[in-house]
């Protein structure tokens, strides 16, 4: 398409700040916001309140179920936000011609995308911190063996799924189509992060496969399984590949 000139318009700082705060309010007004923010917290609280989940399990290498589930529940927040909220919001803006209206204002559509990604990254970070804090303070879940590595894992993992969310956002014409593509990706990551079955209880071969899924790598880093460099490389790979694909396939209208 040679028709729609790419936005090259500069945005004022005030414009970006207002846009970001409006995006945050709009996201929290979505009924689904409850799922992104409340469900992971509730799941941690429910799992932690089951007495059997607070006793060490031989099958989990002497860890308690709650120890294993804290990083998994924390992972739910960025996965919900990056793979469903981001693409569905952006696709609905495209569907409802919100981007078309913005395209005649001094704010480029890229500004909306920037504001949306900023808000989603901030909310995801807040959600991860909340879940980890509840685990540590309420259920005495120990910090990961390598806190710096775990932090790097979550940051890079968040970037990787944001990039994948942007690939979906790049193409989906409607909010429904965005969910159709984003939800399977989210479920795959849920599985690899051990939400349905703890990864340690999976067959060895399947555990290896999970390490190549973004949040499989993130939880592996947290629990210290497998080589750290490999996990970081997997996450960096997804981020770069997703980012390039998003840029390559992006369209505003």
């Amino acid at each position: 398409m040679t028709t729609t000139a790419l936005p090259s318009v500069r945005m004022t700082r005030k414009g970006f700040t207002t846009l970001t705060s409006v995006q945050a309010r709009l996201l929290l007004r979505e009924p689904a916001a409850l799922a992104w923010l409340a469900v992971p917290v509730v799941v941690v609280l429910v799992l932690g309140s089951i007495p059997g989940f607070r006793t060490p399990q031989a099958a989990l290498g002497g860890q308690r179920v709650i120890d294993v589930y804290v990083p998994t529940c924390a992972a739910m927040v960025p996965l919900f936000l990056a793979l469903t909220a981001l693409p569905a919001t952006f696709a609905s803006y495209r569907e409802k011609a919100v981007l078309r209206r913005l395209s005649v204002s001094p704010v480029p559509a890229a500004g909306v995308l920037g504001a949306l990604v900023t808000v989603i990254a901030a909310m995801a970070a807040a959600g991860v911190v909340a879940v980890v804090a509840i685990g540590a303070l309420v259920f005495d879940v120990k910090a990961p063996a390598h806190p710096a590595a775990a932090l790097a894992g979550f940051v890079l993992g968040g970037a990787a799924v944001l990039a994948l969310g942007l690939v979906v956002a790049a193409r989906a014409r409607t909010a429904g189509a965005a969910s159709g593509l984003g939800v399977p990706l989210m479920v795959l990551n849920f599985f690899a992060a051990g939400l349905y079955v703890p990864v340690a209880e999976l067959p060895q071969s399947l555990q290896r496969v999970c390490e190549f899924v973004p949040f499989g790598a993130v939880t592996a880093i947290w629990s210290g399984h497998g080589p750290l460099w490999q996990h970081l490389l997997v996450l960096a790979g997804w981020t770069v590949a997703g980012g390039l694909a998003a840029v390559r396939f992006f369209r505003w209208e």
Partner: protein
Amino acid sequence: MAVIEVERLHKRYGDEVAVDDVSFEVEPGEIFGVLGPNGAGKTTTVECLAGLRTPDGGRVRVLGLDPTRERDALRQVLGVQLQHSGLPDRLRVREALDLYASFYRQPADVPALLDRLGLTEKAGTAYKKLSGGQQQRLAIALAMVGSPRVVVLDELTTGLDPHARRATWELVEQVRATGVTVLLVTHFMEEAERLCDRVALIDAGRVVAVDTPAALAARAGQQQRLRFRPSAPLTDEELRALPEVTAVTRHGSLVEVTGTGNLVHAVTSLLARRQIIAGDLRVEQASLDDAFVTLTGHAADH
């Protein structure tokens, strides 16, 4: 200097020519209409003016700015209401205006704008809960929130009921009254007739004529028609004796006089001299609709 200059604009999508050859100039402070049936190339012309599309040929300037190369500067002085554009469902009226106001260097006063457009009571209402007329009023407000010198309003009243349409027309006149130049794109002849100082008639990507609505209507033919019921007998001969009258027909007690020039004055003077009162008096003049048919050879597709 003209506020908007469009010179031999040409735009195609692949093999399909959307705008073949369009030229017009919009003077400061006027309401200029771009009128034509759906698919005539109106929206593409507007998109070229707004810098959303790059023309394949010709020259476009808005306040002397090239919409493609000087987008940043243009955005600050041009307000645009595009056909088919929306806002997030849950965004509230006041939030939308505050948001768009934050984008501009010289934003309008938002509470005053809300008041002028009758949206003060709806300030806290979500976009999707607004009626069609309210959404259009918000669209005008958003086009005005940057204190623009020129606004482009594309198919502003399409889909509105007659009451909301009239209310919207009044708003457009208010906008012009503040010194803003208005380019109004429409396929409603009546709307152009009511609002526009001058109109460009566009058909199949070409400008058919540019003139005032009255002058365009006059081109459709000089024929006028007068119908009335005389309060006292009046013969056909008396009417035909007037040089302006070309034909007289009768439908029962109703007299129908056709003619040219100052027909209304000639006939009413005669009636006054004879002390006859004209009951049910109707004057029909050619409309823009007639002009469109005359100038293009086919009816404007509503």
